[in-house]
Structure formats: C-alpha cells, structure tokens
C-alpha cells in the first residue's frame, strides 16, 4: 500500500503572469447595466503600506439565489449565466475592481454570505485565502463561525465598506498583506486532519 500522494509544493506566481492568467473582462462577473450589480474594489498594500502593483486576485461566490454555479463558461461568459468567478490583476496603483452581484446565503451553510478570495503576488511563495463579508448581514455576521471567533478589529478586515461608485452601489475591500491592519488570512486545511490521520493511521475513524 503506497498511501495517498504527497502534495505538489506551491511556488510564487512571479512578476510575469500578465499574459498567462488575466483574461479580458476577468472582473466582470456580470455585464455592465445588470440589475443589482455592485462594484467591489480596493487596494492591495504591502507591509510598508505601499500599493502592490503585481498581485492577482480571484473571487468565488454564490449568486443572489444562494446557489453555487455548476456550469462551465467562467472565462468565456455568455452574459446570462452567473458564473461566480472573477480574476483581476491589480493595476499600477495596486487597485482592483470587480463587478458582481451580492451573494445570498447558501442553503445549509452556517456562514454569513461571503466571497472566497485568493491572493497571488510576486514575492508571495504560497497564495493566501481570505473572505469578503458584507456589513448589512448584521445577524448572520454575528453568528458566522469565523467572524465571531475574531477580535472585532481583526474581523473588520473581512467586512467590505459601502462606498458608492458612478455605476451604482459599491463596496471597498482593501487587502493589507502585512503589518498594521493586516487582513485576516485563512488556513483552510482544517479537514486535512483527515488526510494526515490516514498517513499516520492513528486518526479518528
């Protein structure tokens, strides 16, 4: 018996992903003019508070119906199907913008509505996971297992701040990679205990 394979280690996305990963309209989860569209935007900053102009962000979320998309077309969007996936590089000012719809709670979920986020950058050897929550879900946020486990000032780094934009309602979500006001980044390997227990042969049944 050889057991499960060992993971392939992460390596940095490097500085030259621009012709590899971003795609046209990568931040437009919904087309302009879509009813209920919001802008989610912000700045990625490093440990000195300087903008990070070579980060890449990905977002994944349920739709306003609370369903997680199950159909392909996340890059070649047809303009009708909600794909729930965005990929945006930061610009020279470290800024990004995504146009999407607010997620509704996922049936059976204990978490408040949120977007899952992955942060890649030159100088980052292993991507970071975080989440975007919305301030209007007061009760759901208070009951959210992650938000409720954090000191208020740390939980605040995960909650988007309403700020209008020219096209309608908008939210600011800044990402601080290090230092003062550092964004809460997540270790989601929790269920990995099951994996390592398989290796050790000593875990829960």
């Amino acid at each position, binding site marked *: 018996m050889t*057991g*499960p*394979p*060992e*993971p*392939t*280690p*992460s*390596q*940095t*996305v*490097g*500085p*030259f*992903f621009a*012709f*590899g990963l971003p795609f046209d309209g990568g931040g437009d989860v919904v087309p302009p003019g879509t009813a209920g569209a919001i802008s989610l935007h912000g700045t990625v900053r*490093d440990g000195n508070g*300087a903008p990070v102009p070579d980060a890449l962000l990905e977002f*994944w*979320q*349920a739709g306003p119906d609370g369903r*997680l998309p*199950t*159909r*392909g*077309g*996340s*890059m070649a969007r*047809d303009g009708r199907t909600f*794909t729930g996936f965005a990929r945006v590089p930061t610009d020279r000012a470290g800024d990004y913008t995504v146009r999407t719809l607010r*997620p509704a709670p*996922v049936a059976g*979920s204990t*978490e408040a509505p*949120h977007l*899952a986020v992955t942060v*890649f*950058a030159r*100088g*980052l*050897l*292993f*991507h970071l*996971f975080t989440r975007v929550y919305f301030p209007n879900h007061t009760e759901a946020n208070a009951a959210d*297992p*992650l938000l409720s486990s*954090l000191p208020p000032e740390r939980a605040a780094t995960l909650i988007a701040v309403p700020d209008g934009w020219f096209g309608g309602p908008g939210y600011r979500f800044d990402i601080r*990679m290090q*230092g003062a006001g550092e964004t*809460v*980044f997540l*270790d*989601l*390997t*929790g*269920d990995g205990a*099951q*994996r390592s227990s*398989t290796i050790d042969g000593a875990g829960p049944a």
Partner: protein
Amino acid sequence: MTAAIREAATAPPQRGGHPDRAYAPYRSTALRAPSQPLVVASPSLVERTAPVFGAADVAPIDADLTQHSTGEPLGERIVVTGRVLDAAGRPVRHQLVEVWQANAAGRYRHDGDLHPAPLDPHFVGGGRCLTDDDGRYRFVTIKPGAYPWRNHHNAWRPAHIHFSLFGTAFTQRLVTQMYFPGDQLFALDPIFSSVTDEKAQQRLIARYDHDTTVAEWALGYQWDIVLDGPGATPPDPDEV
C-alpha cells in the same frame, strides 16, 4: 546566496512541503508575507466548491503553444503531460490547467522583462487546457530558457514553466512552477530552494519520458500534480 539558502534550509519544513512565505533568501517576501499566523477556519460551503470551466472557455489549440503565431517558434519542441490528482490520489477531471513561460532565450513577452535576450515573434508563451476523464493534461511547447533576475548578484532562475491549477474545491487552488531534471541552478535559486524538503523539491521536477517523446518531432516530459487541501467530498476510505 548559497550560504543564505543553506541557513534557511535548517528551518523545519512546512506542512505539505510548501514554502514558508517569510523565506528570507527571496527578498521580495520581506514585505509581502503576513506577520500574523493564519487563522484556522473550517472551509465554508463556498470554499468546498470550485469555479467551473468548460469547452467554451478553452479551445484545443490553446494547449499547443507552438501554434499561437503565423510561424514556428525557435527552440527545442517539447511535450509536457501528466495527471492532476487530489490529496486522496483521485483524478481531478475536466478542470482548468493554465501555463505561462519564457521563450527559448529566457525572455518573457512582458513589458517588465528587461533581460536583453531576443523576443521570438512566433512565441507568446501562454497556454490552457482542461484535464480529461483521467485527470490528464497535455501541452506542446518549447523548452524555456533560464533567465537572470535581480534578487541578488548573478541571480538566475532555472528553466521553468509556471502552472495554475484548480481542484474540485476552492481550497485546492495551486499556482506552482515545473522544473526540468538535472538543472545546475536548483541549489542557487531561492525560489526553488524555498521548498526546503528534498523530497518535496523532487515533486517540482518533471521526469524525462521516452514514451512521451514523439519520434522525429518532440522530447517528452511527465509531471503529475497533487493538489493539497480538502476536496469537495471527503476521501472514500476504499480509494485511499
């Protein structure tokens, strides 16, 4: 640099063989690695699913990087293929694999690449494909060249192809780099060496495979990729 790399290698390896984000020999980590420990969280239902890609997103020609121009790129034509597996060893089917790389001279088609090596008018260097029923991907490309960078004096990256992978859950997301066997630059490269465990380093290196080599046409390499993190469904004990 080798002394700094040797010193950093004495730190205990990270879970899964991944690099420590605060790996000092790679200078740009200094202001970009979080200073707070990661917060352990149970993956949400959102994070237990993954973005979906399909035939509309990827054309077959996207997997042949030698066919993205009006002429043939210069360099050594190669086939790179392998399987994408989850932590339980199950194939990741019909999921997106993306690659990007320098040309044969070690130059990226990117404004920020200042290496005085020639651009190849017939090579762009980006590719995509979907894995098949067996989790297999396959790219045709040219072997990328090594290239200098500014991390320290006389710093050179070993030849590599950047890979981006999705699993069946958002938690399995992976961006990494594939290297070629026998490269003399491994021990001098802080990015490769940021993976400090030797066995884990081997998992970044493709294997030359004569059965993958196509006679009279291209050399073949095999590289399997194993995604970390919990999958969409718990591993079936019978499959482990």
